[in-house]
């Protein structure tokens, strides 16, 4: 079998889409193949979709990857464990704090490393602030894709700027934070930092109210998103879709509740669930999750304990975990972000694997888009929330 040629048709049941017409008679034109991307503003980076159109309707859509591929995994296998921590920032460059945490989580599992309580709280604070950044920007970009030409995005960026100013004050970098370490965090925030963060979180619901007043009931928004890009729960689970996209289809699966990693078991928050699995539900998931994140942050600020931020037994230099393997995963803003590591006892990981939620959430992109117009495909892609640094690695 030549592996380069697609062989048999897919054995799994795809979502029902319109079939390609067999005859192109004089009343119907030919099918048109459009290559969207890699240089296209609506693909959120260097992603490419090869779309086959019947008029304006999509009959086939193939995603093409690899334009940002730099073999992150190979580079990490040739570096020490700590050496690839700054490089994980570049995977999902909007959410470097939670990407750092996912990597630290996997290495701590591999080495059996404990994390002090204060560091666990700080990690939760950083991860939830990151979720606010990601979700508010995603909503902005989604409206950009809907054709509102930047206004909601600028509102989101105004808030994001405040949060990444906090990140910069803490870690020295706005986006590439490099904050987590194996067994704790790198910098302890000052009381002033915590007061500023508390104030930001106090004000955030006001921004959300303003945002929702402008967007949620918007007539064009409703017409363009309700019933568009439906994804049913069975297909979504089978295709490994995770994060808000899965929960929009009504599947109650949030790793903060299921795995209860870190100290999430001690926090009181709810997991919002959608009912229809369409683009509108996916939008609402982000808004509701931001409100839950604010709740988590308020609890974390109230209960943040004093103490060390690094485990005294943690080793930064000469770190050599025992031979073995571990798969650590957490609920990133985009879905389940996992790191799989195999150690052979040397300073470098023998195998380092990133389980990218952005890539796997694209598995059903074609099924979600079939039968819709090409303008809707842009919106559906926007609602899945991908970042190409993570898709292509």
């Amino acid at each position, binding site marked *: 079998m030549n592996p380069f040629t697609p062989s048999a048709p897919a054995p799994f049941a795809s979502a029902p889409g319109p079939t390609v017409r067999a005859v192109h008679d004089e009343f119907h034109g030919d099918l048109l193949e459009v290559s969207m991307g890699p240089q296209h503003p609506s693909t959120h980076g260097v992603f490419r979709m090869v779309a086959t159109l019947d008029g304006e309707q999509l009959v086939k859509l193939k995603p093409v990857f690899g334009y940002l591929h730099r073999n992150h995994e190979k580079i990490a296998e040739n570096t020490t464990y700590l050496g690839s921590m700054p490089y994980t920032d570049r995977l999902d460059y909007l959410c470097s704090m939670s990407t750092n945490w996912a990597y630290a989580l996997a290495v701590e*599992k591999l080495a059996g490393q404990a994390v002090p309580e204060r560091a666990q709280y700080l990690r939760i604070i950083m991860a939830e602030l990151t979720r606010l950044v990601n979700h508010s920007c995603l909503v902005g970009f989604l409206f950009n894709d809907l054709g509102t030409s930047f206004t909601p995005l600028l509102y989101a960026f105004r808030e994001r700027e405040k949060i990444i100013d906090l990140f910069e004050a803490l870690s020295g970098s706005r986006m590439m934070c490099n904050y987590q370490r194996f067994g704790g965090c790198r910098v302890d925030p000052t009381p002033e930092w915590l007061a500023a963060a508390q104030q930001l979180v106090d004000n955030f619901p006001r921004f959300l109210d303003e945002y929702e007043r402008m967007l949620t009931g918007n007539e064009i928004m409703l017409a363009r998103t309700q019933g568009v890009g439906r994804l049913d729960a069975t297909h979504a689970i089978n295709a*490994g879709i995770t994060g808000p996209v899965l929960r929009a289809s009504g599947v109650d699966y949030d790793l903060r509740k299921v795995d209860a990693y870190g100290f999430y078991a001690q926090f009181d928050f709810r997991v919002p669930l959608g009912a229809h699995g369409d683009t509108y539900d996916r939008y609402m998931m982000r808004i509701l999750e931001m409100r839950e994140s604010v709740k988590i942050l308020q609890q974390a600020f109230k209960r943040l304990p004093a103490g060390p931020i690094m485990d005294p037994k943690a080793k930064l230099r000469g770190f050599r975990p025992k*031979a073995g393997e571990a*798969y650590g995963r957490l609920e990133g803003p985009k879905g389940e972000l*996992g790191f799989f590591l195999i150690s052979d006892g040397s300073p470098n990981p023998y195998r380092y694997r990133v389980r990218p939620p952005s890539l796997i959430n694209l598995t059903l992109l074609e099924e979600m888009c079939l039968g819709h117009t090409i303008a809707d495909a842009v919106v559906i892609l926007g609602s899945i929330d991908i970042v190409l640094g993570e898709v292509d690695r």
Partner: protein
Amino acid sequence: METLEQIRARLLLAYPAAQITFVTNPGPAAEHSLLIEAAHAVEIARWLRDDPALRLDYCSNATGVDWPDKTITDVTTTTEPDPAGGPAKTVEIKTTRLQPGYLEAIYHLYSIALKQGPVVIRLRTANRTDAVTLPSLTPTWRSCDFQEREIFDLYGIIFTGHPDLRRLLMWDEFKDHPMRKDYVEPDDYEWEPTAHGAVLERAKPHQSAAAAPAPKMGGTP
């Protein structure tokens, strides 16, 4: 959730002919795994997904690992009596043997319905060169679709039964599999075959004919 040994015992009851090996993970994570014979992998995967006590409906992570050939040195010590009558000497005999390498695909399975997991299963190819086929688990878990394409791309495992096995990240004309441990980086990353080379090749016979002296008419050599 039942332990991995219990799952293995039940699997052996359901598939007595299958070879299922328990692979110990010596690290602190202690996530052990089951090594499954490739011939039965598809049925076993479907069983794991549909079994009412497990319901592993979600394949979170699928990845490849390369284990190259290893030269293992065995040292055996024997005592030899000294012919001169002195004390017996201990002699070390070193023998080297080649442990053949293989490629491995590892799947991390979870259950969303019952909120349990992980169950880790591994499949191994016979070697790293010519017998690198494994059955695809994409018909069971669609989430393996892109991930198996990535394994094929970066490690060179050919998944039979995959609906659309193409390279995912490298370009289609790329020849090697860069995540293998013995991969050698090219001197020039930018080089790739262009149509220009093929044209030059086709032009060659014409050029040599033009350069050679014109054949004489009518004469015999």
